[in-house]
């Protein structure tokens, strides 16, 4: 469920009852949920955000020979306070595998820390670099088994010897999905049209970099909880390159 810029985790039974409602009953259901949401005293309450959250824009794009993952760098508390302008949301979980984080920063850090440990242990046991799918599966198990407590979503992307560049979305409740490109976070809602129109399979590195930078710049331009600099990480078989595009070097569009 999406309410404004936030997602609400609804228990299975409620989601089930919601499906069987129609018309007026459904409207009442939503209204009740919204009211409950407003007076909830938890860290995803609209006006009483207790923790640091990454209202954010993250994306990942597959290109010819690798993946690019990118994010903005703003961390916010509530709608009006920017708690950090330079946060890194691209966490390295193995040599050629990265995760972008969205949602509660604390939860995301806890999950990636655990995943990093499990992945390194797994990779040493297997005596070979881990598959991106394995990394994503580890994140998924953590998210799914702890879905009541956690509020974090991820994009796991990287390169492995078996299938080359891959991107996996691990959503809030623990869904795992493979995609050629994907966007996430609160700022992503503003750029669905752009990425759907502009994405091409098998782009070159330059095209893909331009695509990612443009998408992030557009999202950061419209979403108040995304901003700062653009962090990009290019992952290929040969190397991992971290590129930072500062705010004043971002591409400008007609509204600015």
């Amino acid at each position, binding site marked *: 469920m999406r309410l404004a810029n936030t997602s609400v985790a609804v228990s299975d039974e409620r989601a089930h009852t919601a499906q069987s409602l129609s018309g007026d009953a459904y409207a009442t259901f939503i209204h009740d949920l919204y009211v409950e949401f407003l007076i909830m005293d938890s860290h995803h309450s609209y006006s009483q955000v207790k923790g640091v959250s990454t209202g954010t824009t993250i994306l990942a794009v597959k290109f010819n020979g690798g993946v690019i993952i990118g994010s903005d760098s703003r961390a916010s508390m509530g709608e009006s306070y920017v708690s950090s302008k330079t946060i890194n949301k691209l966490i390295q979980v193995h040599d050629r595998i990265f995760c972008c984080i969205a949602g509660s920063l604390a939860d995301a850090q806890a999950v990636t820390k655990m995943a990093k440990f499990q992945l390194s242990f*797994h990779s040493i*046991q*297997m005596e070979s670099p881990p*598959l991106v*799918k*394995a990394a994503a*599966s580890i994140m998924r*198990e953590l998210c799914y088994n702890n879905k009541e407590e956690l509020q974090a979503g991820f994009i796991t992307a990287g390169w492995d*010897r078996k299938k080359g560049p891959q991107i996996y979305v691990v959503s809030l409740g623990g869904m*795992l999905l493979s995609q050629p490109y994907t966007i996430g976070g609160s700022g992503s809602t503003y750029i669905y049209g752009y990425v759907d129109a502009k994405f091409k399979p098998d782009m070159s590195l330059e095209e893909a970099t331009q695509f990612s930078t443009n998408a992030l710049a557009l999202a950061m331009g419209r979403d108040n909880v995304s901003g700062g600099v653009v962090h990009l990480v290019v992952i290929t078989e040969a190397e991992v390159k971290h590129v930072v595009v500062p705010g004043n070097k971002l591409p400008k569009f007609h509204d600015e």
Partner: protein
Amino acid sequence: ISLLPIQYDLSASTFSPDGRVFQVEYAIKAVENSSTAIGIRCKDGVVFGVEKLVLSKLYEEGSNKRIFNIDRHVGMAVAGLLADARSLSEVSREEASNFRSNYGHDIPLKHLADRVAMYVHAYTLYSAVRPFGCSFILGSYDEDDGPQLYMVDPSGISHGYWGCAIGKAKQAAKTEIEKLQMKEMTCRELVKEVAKIIYIVHDEVKDKAFELELSWVGEVTKGRHELVPKDIKEEAEKYAKVIYIALKHILSKLCPFILNISLSNNIVYILW
């Protein structure tokens, strides 16, 4: 140095003065009492063959299988105490299934063999339990890693092989396997050779009836471990028996006194 195992062979938690754990060695002997199982790895797959002795004509055909499916892409052929082997096949299945659940992809065979070998080894450490009395051969095929073959014995050691044999005629079978150029063969050619080897090492004098179990996993089965289809199995058995039948035919024509000819341990016995 104690050559007699007295005193030192009562539990797996005791070493002998010359550094042996007799219980584990006895477990290995238990495997050598069972009938033969072989596994051979070729260019594009793995083939298993098991000489399944039929102790009674009343048994239903195909019961007490000695080849198990561990995962879609992994097969296991066993020799030794069948009940122990069944329990280990369940352990292997759980390992493979947990791996898939945690990491999202098929378990690599080396890892599976290591994990099950660790489990088998754990039972050689304590006096409260006895070691597993079975060896088993694991085989799989993967598009990227190719065919793999591993054998685990009761001591908990696993080795990778191109061809291996376990059970009573393992030496004879090994000799036959070494004659093959398996790295250049395909699964279809290998099936016939595996059937032939089982027929050769089968001892007609000591053990009467037997059923041949054949299974394979490779490019020909698209990476799934399956029993060899009936028609291919019949063809393989015909090929295996051809030398044997020809010999019988020739000798019975030459000499009408001959009542029976049997092949045991590469020696031909003639009853006349």
